[in-house]
């Protein structure tokens, strides 16, 4: 398939892998002393697992799967709020498909739908807006979730609704931002990460500059990467080159999509519609200052938080859950006390098990191969 196969070419992949192996050798890293590299974005985690890239990397590199899957980090309290809105009598609650299964404190949106709430899967906020136009006697709420990747389209849709004078469209914003999140991760003494593969689509919106201060302050190199296998391998080569040459900077591998200045129109839309929240509660990472986006008072009439009475309770993660440590690279998923026992993809407890892009879910589904190979054979 054009524009896809080019970035999945096995021959080029092998060359890059050989180069990575050489670089890791030259850096003197091995299984006992691996370089820990975090891919922040869930899309990258997905590519790593889908193409089996982890099994092809040398042992001197350990990939740590970061918090960049917005579905995974959606806190219990937000799901409860979403359910509170969706169960109002006159509401059509619209959402992206993969938030349906995220567990709240009592149930998920999928269960709530089964119990009779009018919850509909949409593919973009403009679908929700169209629904609002078609159903003037119903309140149509769009569940805004995600980083700066999805937030601009929610913002532009809200502006469109405002311009049309619609009074039955509402945005429920649980949007989050990447920089404060990385800041919180880097400030954590538990963090054991040597460098970052940066999120391509978020950076397409915010640009490269916002990472510069972080990179300098914490001396961690960052390479912004695309999502195809060759993108990721090339980004690793670039990151390793920084280690080899002793540089520490922000580089952009995903130049075919990401401009250094980002997307101005999207940035303006975000600026116009949203304000940072003082604090936002993350599943797995706890409360992070300035990491959430709330709707500005000018658009309060389109803000679901103002329109509906919400419980807005902060529900802490279950005590047994060690997602925070997994997300910071302090432990591997299978080292968590509840991994694969109390916490499974069918009944997830923590962030990392919720979506198929979460680190624990990925290991649960795909990790057995790696562990069966490295563990000695059981005796019959």
């Amino acid at each position, binding site marked *: *398939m054009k524009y*896809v196969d080019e970035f*999945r070419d*096995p021959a080029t*992949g*092998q060359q890059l*892998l050989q180069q990575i192996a050489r670089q890791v050798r030259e850096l003197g890293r091995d299984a006992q002393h691996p370089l820990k590299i975090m891919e922040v*974005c*869930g*899309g990258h985690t*997905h590519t790593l*697992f*889908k*193409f*089996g*890239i*982890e*099994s*092809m990397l040398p042992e001197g590199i350990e990939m740590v799967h970061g918090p960049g899957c*917005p*579905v995974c980090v959606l806190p219990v309290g937000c799901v409860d709020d979403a359910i509170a809105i969706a169960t109002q009598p006159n509401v059509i609650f619209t959402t*992206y*498909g*993969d*938030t*349906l*299964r995220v567990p709240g404190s009592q149930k998920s949106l*999928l269960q709530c739908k089964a119990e009779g709430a009018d919850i509909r*899967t*949409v*593919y973009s906020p403009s*679908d929700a807006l169209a629904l609002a136009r078609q159903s003037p006697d119903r309140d149509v709420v769009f569940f805004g*979730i*995600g*980083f700066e*990747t*999805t937030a601009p389209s929610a913002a532009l849709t809200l502006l469109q609704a405002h311009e049309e004078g619609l009074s039955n469209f509402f945005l429920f914003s649980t949007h989050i931002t990447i920089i404060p999140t990385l800041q919180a991760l880097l400030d954590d003494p538990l963090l054991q990460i040597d460098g970052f593969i940066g999120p391509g*689509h978020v950076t397409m919106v915010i640009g490269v500059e916002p990472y510069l201060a972080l990179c300098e302050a914490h001396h961690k190199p960052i390479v912004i990467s695309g999502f195809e*296998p060759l993108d990721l391998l090339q980004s690793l080569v670039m990151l390793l080159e920084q280690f080899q040459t002793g540089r520490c900077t922000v580089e952009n591998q995903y130049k075919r999509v990401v401009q250094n200045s980002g997307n101005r129109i999207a940035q303006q839309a975000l600026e116009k519609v949203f304000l940072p929240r003082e604090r936002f509660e993350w599943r797995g990472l706890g409360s992070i200052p300035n990491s959430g986006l709330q709707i500005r008072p000018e658009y309060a009439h389109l803000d679901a938080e103002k329109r509906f009475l919400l419980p807005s309770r902060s529900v802490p993660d279950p005590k047994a859950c060690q997602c925070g440590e997994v997300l910071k690279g302090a432990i591997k998923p299978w080292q968590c006390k509840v991994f694969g026992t109390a916490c499974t*993809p*069918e009944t997830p407890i923590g962030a990392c098990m919720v*979506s*198929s*892009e979460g680190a624990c879910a990925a290991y649960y*589904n*795909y*990790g*057995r*191969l790696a562990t*069966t190979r490295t563990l000695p054979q059981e005796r019959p």
Partner: protein
Amino acid sequence: MTDTKPTPTPVPDSTEARYPSPQLWDRIEGARRRAGRVRDTVITQAHGGGGKAMRDLIDDVIRSAFDNPNLQIQEDQARFSLAEMALHGDRLAFTTDGYVVSPLFFPGGDIGKLAVNGTINDLAVSGARPLYLSCSLILEEGLPMDTLREILASMGQAARQAGVQIVTGDTKVVPRGAADKIFISTAGIGVIPASQQIAAHQLQPNDAILINGYLGDHGAAILIARGELQLETTIESDCAPLHGLIAALLDAKITPRAMRDLTRGGLAATLNEIAQASNLHIAIDATKIPIRTEVQGFCEILGFDPVHLANEGKLALAVPAEQAQTALAVMRAHPLGQHAAIIGSCRPEPKGIVTLQNGFGGERILAMLVGEQLPRIC
């Protein structure tokens, strides 16, 4: 225009006025017994009431669509000769399936064709020759009669093409909202030849794994036909009866160890069932799996994986390695197997799992989906 001018009532003969002629009663009795014509334009609850309206529906709309000698005996059950069935083999295969697809009509098929072919395929993958189907209809009040006629005509056509007979059935009408337009349940009976012992646990190390063509066409066609995605494609459902293809394999002395049709859950679910039942490792080469460019593109956009998409005319089978090339040639010579491929093989370890070797050189476990495949947001 009809003439509205009043006509004078003819003066009746005095005896006829008091005692109607016997011919009148004969005429009425004849009309009561004659198969009625259904003139209603929609299904009403009367059509499920057990009275004349229901009988007319069965005679005029249903029986006529399935026309076959077994239906003509009009008893509460179909009856078959054991001796005749025993000519085909030594065991019966019996299966049932419900069909609730939305939309009812989609590129490449409709709920009726699906209800016939799906049950035929469940029989056929045991090696059985499918013979008889039942058809139970649950109709929502308000279903347009023409829609019902169209679906039943499609079922009749699918059955005739496949050489099976729909021999018994049932019709219920439920109030508006209690069902979604029409639900169909079909059960099927087939006869398994004495020589066939096809079962998932029969899988052996080194067996070759084959499929008969492009994956995911049905799943993609249905999702697109629902219209929510606003995508325009030429993808059609692969809905088809597979017993002809399977008969061709068996005629060529292929002895499949395991065979399943790939429906909901796609290739991934089926191979996992086989791997778990046999406690062996199935290793698949992703580059060998036939997938249409359109379906691949559809999956790339939505974050789906074709190995999880539903199919309605595809099967996976395991054959001894030495039969693999013959089986492939036989399948490719059949219209429903033109794009058949050998996609992998079976190994002793690690037990009970399916792995996918991708073109990139990496290998991963191919797991079953937990729930429904939902589009990813990023």
